[in-house]
Structures are given as C-alpha cells and as structure tokens.
C-alpha cells in the first residue's frame, strides 16, 4: 500500500530471502484523477494509498486509516457514468478513470444539550433535530453510506421515536458525513444516531444488578485486605499463585 512501509516490512517478514523476489511482477498501474488531475497509481491501491503515492502529504482526510473514524470521506465519479459515488478513502480501491476528491470536513453544527435533562422519547429529536421531520424518504442517504447502513430507516425510526431501532440501525455509523451532504432535507443523520445511542445506553438499556452489587462491594472496601496482601507479595509468590489459578 505505502511504498516506504512495504519495503521496510519485506525486510522483516521474510528474512530468509536476502534479495527482493526477482519473479515479483512489476506493479500494474492505473490512471485516476485526484482533484481533477491525472495520476498514475498502482491498480491495487486504496484511494488513500493512491493520494500518497501521487506525492500528497495528507494532513486532513486521514485518521484511523482502517475504516473506523470517518475522516476520509471521498466523492467520485466514473467515466461515462453520471452518478456520484461515495466511499472511504482508506478502504476503497481505486478504479481506472476514477475522478475523485476528498472532503476535508463536512460542515455540520451539533446542538448542545444536557443528556441528564433529555427524555428518551420523540421529544428529544423534536427539540434538537426538528429537521428530521422534513425527510422526503428519497433514500439517498442510504445509497451514500459506505457502511451500507439503512440510514433512511433510522431517520424514519427517529421520527417515530423508536430509539432502540435508531440505536440498532446506526450502531456501526462512522460519522463520515456522506449521508448528510447528499440529503435534500439537510439532515445530519449521524448526530441523530449518536443521540439515540446515548439515550438508549443511559435510559433504556436494562440495568445490571451484578454491576450494582460489585460497586457496593468496592465501596465497602471488600477487596482492601486481598489487595494489601497481593501488593506485598514477592515475584515468586505471585508467580506461583498466577500459574496455579483456575480459568473459567
């Protein structure tokens, strides 16, 4: 993927080969248009790899580099095709003729709220995200989602006040914002999903009695003696205890 990394890694990962494999096929190249400019890049590169291969040093537009953070939202078109495609630069592979641009940031304000003062029902959405009621059910958001989430469905669930459903459907959302820039109703979907998750976790998920019991025990200093004993033990004593312990 990254030229420098790969060279270095090969040295390590196959030490019994002194020289690079002569039979290794030369890289196959392909042409992509990065912000409108043609570049030759390896045909098996990710978009992010291609941008770096072309000589850009990324400052905005890369975070986790593994499909978790949503920093690398990218829009592209393909030759002879009128459609706008969306994807994550870190996990989407380049294709011949791809015409692409990263979105350094998605403008979207987040309303301020106090989670303690909200109620876990439709009023929370009405108050903070009244625009969701403008959804025209066009499904563009769902088509834009690189995680293949049912985005429209979770917005519809929010309109109904079904917090559990919103939580469930938006669980894997990366907050990349690609749905939000495509939405004709100007909804910021991922913020709605995040609010639903927080409301569900705090108010609606079933509470664990075991957890409460353990917290009481800790508070009552039930483990103090045992800690004191363990913390005084020498390494060989600890080792004995450790290797003799049973496993669930």
């Amino acid at each position, binding site marked *: 993927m990254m030229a420098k990394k790969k060279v270095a890694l090969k040295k390590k990962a196959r030490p019994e080969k002194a020289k690079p494999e002569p039979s290794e096929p030369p890289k196959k190249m392909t042409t992509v248009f990065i912000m409108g400019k043609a570049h030759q890049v390896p045909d098996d590169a990710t978009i992010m790899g291609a941008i770096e291969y072309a000589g850009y*040093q990324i400052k905005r537009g890369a975070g986790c580099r593994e499909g*978790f953070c949503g920093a690398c939202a990218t829009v592209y078109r393909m030759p002879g095709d009128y459609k706008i495609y969306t994807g994550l630069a870190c996990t989407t592979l380049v294709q011949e003729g791809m015409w692409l641009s990263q979105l350094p940031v998605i403008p979207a304000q987040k309303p301020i709220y106090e989670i303690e003062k909200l109620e876990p029902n439709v009023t929370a959405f009405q108050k903070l995200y009244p625009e969701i009621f403008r959804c025209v059910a066009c499904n563009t958001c769902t088509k834009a989602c690189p995680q293949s989430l049912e985005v429209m469905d979770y917005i519809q669930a929010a309109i109904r006040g079904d917090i559990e459903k919103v939580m469930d459907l938006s669980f894997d959302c990366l907050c990349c914002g690609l749905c939000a820039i495509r939405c004709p109703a100007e909804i910021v979907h991922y913020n709605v999903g995040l609010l639903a998750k927080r409301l569900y976790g705090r108010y609606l998920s079933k509470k664990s009695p075991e957890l409460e019991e353990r917290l009481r025990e*800790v508070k009552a200093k039930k483990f103090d003696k045992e800690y004191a004993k363990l913390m005084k033990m020498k390494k060989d004593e600890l080792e004995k205890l450790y290797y003799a312990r049973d496993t669930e």
Partner: protein
Amino acid sequence: MYPEYMRESLTLVEKTRPKRLELEKSGKPVFRPMTAQEREDVLNRFHPDYQPEARRIIRVGPNKGESITTEVADMLESHSRIKPELIDLSKPDYETDILIIGGGGAGCAAAILAMQNGAKSIISTKLRLGDANSMMSQGGMQAAVKPQDSPTRHYLDALGGGHFDNKPDLVRALTEDGPEVVKWLEELGVVWDKNPDGSMYVLHGGGTSRKRMHSCRDYTGAVIMRTLMDEVRNHPDKVTILEFMPTIELILDSRGRCAGGILYNMETEEYFAVKAKATIIATGGYGRLHIRGFDTTNHYGATGDGLVIAYRAGANLLYMDSVQYHPTGAVFPEQIAGFLITEKIRGAGGQPINKFGELFVFPREPRDVESAALIRECLERKNGIQTPSGRWGVWLDSPLIETIEGSGYLEKNFPAMVRQFIRYNIDITKEPMLVYPSLHYQNGGIETNDRCETNIPGLYVAGEASGGVHGRNRLMGNSVLDYNVFGRRAGKYAAQYAKSVSLSKLTVDHVADYEDELKKARIKTDRVAPVLLPFYTPEEVRKRQLTAHYEGTLR
C-alpha cells in the same frame, strides 16, 4: 478472494475443523498453555524485542544509559521544532486551568472530570477530536463485574500478563476502578452488550482467567470515544477544542513546574503559547514509528509525541524497551496489511491454524507469547502460508465460531470485521483470515503514580502515553480501561492541583538545555521531533521535490 495456490491449505483447515470443534466444546483448553520456561524460550528466540538491533543505549536525558527500543532512542535524540529564543512567553496566546494534550479517550475523559471538578481546559489535538487509537478498539474493555470474578483476580491476571513488572499501585487503581468505569460510561450513554436479563455480556481475552471483556459489538472504541467526544462538545464554555494544533513542547515555570505548552497549527504553520496551571499528556502511542519495519494497527497520528516533549522537560520514562505486537494483524489482502483482527475473535473460539490445518498454540496466551509463537510457526517451522507479495501468515479460523455459536453470530458480533474482508471478496463466516503480528501498542511510557502525577510538578499523564501499569506486556481490554481510569483520575487530580497553584515566570529553557546535552554527547543528527506525522511519500517523488522544505517528516 484467496489465490488458487492457497486452496489446498484451506481444505486442510476445513478438514480438521470438526475435530477442533469437539476440543473446543470439551471445555478443556484446546491446546496445552505454555509453561513459564516455554514462554521464556519462545520470547527469547522469536519476539522482535529480543532481536539484537531492537534496543540501544540512550545517551541523553533522564533515562541516559538505559537500553531502550532503538526507534524510540532515535526519536528522543533529536532536535526540537522550535528555537527557544524565538518564543515570546510574556503574553501567552491562551490561558486556562488545564492544558490537555491529545483528544483521544484519555484526553476526553480527563476534560469531563476536570470540568466536573471546577476546572476549565483546552484540548490540543493533532488531527480531529477522536482521531485516535481509542476510536479503533474493537475487542473491548476489561472490568471485574461478574460474581465469579473479582477486582483482585483481575489484578493478578494483569500482573501475570505483564510478567510481574507492573507497578502495583497503578494496577490496583486500574482494576479497582473498573466496575465504576462501566457504570460511568453507561450513564454517559455507552451501549454495552448485554444478556437479555440486563447483566453484562462478557468474553475472555488473552490472559484472562475469568470472562470480563465488555464490548459494544465490535465498535467498542468507536462507541465509547464518540460518547465521550459528544459529552465534551456539549460543554463549550468549559472545554475549548483546538484541532490540527498539536503541542510540540511543554512550557515550565522558573520553579520547574509544568505551565502549559507550545502549540503548532499544522495548517497555517503558526505557533501559539498556552499558559496552564496544570498539563495532562494524553497523546497515546507510537505505532506510526513502524518499529522494526512492522506495519501497524495504529491511527495516523500515533507517533509518540508525548514521550519526546515530556522527556525534554525532564520526565522519567519506564519500560521503553518493550513493544507490543498484536498477534493477529491482517496480511492478506495487501491493502489491509497490518489492520487489526481483534483478539475477541480468539476469545469467541477462533483458533490459529498452520498450513496443515493444525492448531499449534493455545489461542489465548499473553500477546507477546502468542505473537512469538506465530512468528516461530512461520519462520522456524516453516508452517506458515506465504502471500503473493511475500508476507508470511497463519490462518485464524473464524468459521469455527459460526459453528460454535450458530450462523449469523459473526455478522451480529463482528460486523466491522466481516465488512473489512467482504470488500475483498473474503467471507470470514466461511473462510479463515490470514494473520501475522502487527505493531500495536506502546507498553511503556512516561512514569506516573496512581494520581497520574509525574516527577515534574503540574505534569500529569494518562493513557497509552504513560508507563508502568501494564509492565512489559499489556493484556487486551486493559488499555481501554486504562484510558478511562487514568483519564478520569488525571482530570480530577489536575483540577484539584490547579486550584492552588500560582505560576511564576514561564520558560522553555529546558529545550535549549537539551540541545546542549545533545551537543555534549556529540550527537549529530537531522532528526526532528515530535514526529507529528509519518512519512509516506515515495522516494521517486521525494527526489523530484527539489525545493521542498521538510522539518523532520513534515513538509
């Protein structure tokens, strides 16, 4: 899709699966766990840390004379990004109670607790808030909540995993605060995996003797991180967030107390001085230094910056000779090389299998041992599978989990993992993954006590940047817990400290002093640190950049 030549081996994995399933169901360990001697042997011979060039003596600073990871020594023996004489500290650009360096999990947890303890803070962070290793953890967080478990048992597990080098007071704080952190996060709105009766759904991790891994499907880190970020953003009057503005040096006062930092705007290239009564380093790890040439699981900004700035200011480092390689990084397809395959896969019953379809190691040894065993299987026993680009790997049998738990289990519990591979036409519910160790975690770091204090008054450290709690080997699930426990503690104790302190004259003289020390040790180098971002520009391009100016790795 796997290339044709791997078919034969894949068939063998399928063939041995029913037998291995039986073993798994028997309730006994599927492979005999190693004895202490066996662990030592495999570590000595195959763990990357134990190779001769892996460590060298550091020649300057508080740990002078100690043998530490070569790449870290290189990074520490480097020049500052600033000339101290150009910095005017008479009129700081910002003033606050607490400067928090790093907007990952530890930083955000600290900001929340600081605010609840009456302090205002500024978060200086390198990328966007939450672009951090904390966003990426999939597996989960340890905490002893179940009746058959206890915080002291957790303590012993952590100690054994860390080869008994862990600092006892830190491990106690970690394990004793665990249950409270579960509760705190739930109250903030984290959606934990639960059983239908509301009790916590927990799994094993490497080195755990009780099931205590709490998770949010396989987006554990993402769910926790986004909840913490959202909470921080709900209080703009108390927390100011400065993105793309990493801290590149600390500021001290004339009495040697930490008094804030110098921030660098990576886009406009301006420098800013932040005066703060207390400072918390929460800069995370160093995977992007690509130690020993390994690929990494870490985020783009994981370059060990906190270590350098603290070290120049005189902070002690601990266990900087030990690097964590995660046993299971992806090696195929090439585009995802280095990506993490969560340990929870092995927690749920996934087994590492060699090219003959054989189990060769207990799936849940501590990470360093498991990694060394995988390397041995490939390099010494030659029982690995080689990818078209020449990488070695062994199988991680994920379809076995579907057989144990019923079909649909992976899709439901490991959606991120399934998604990662399906993009490349590999269905991990039907075919195993090919894995090899990947550079994962900074075991050591800046030395702290259980109040997150360092040897510099006013300087606190939390999360992966700190050292001591995990000894020389962290167990899975203990660092998500770590950044929560110590992020919270740092926020609280720094806020209390900030109430009473009044700073004297600000200085960055320590930066000049460090330069002098380099000169005296006759260290000549063009290295610059903090590194900030790794350098991925191809050589060909670099050669043509005739007039480009680089400060270290940064153009």
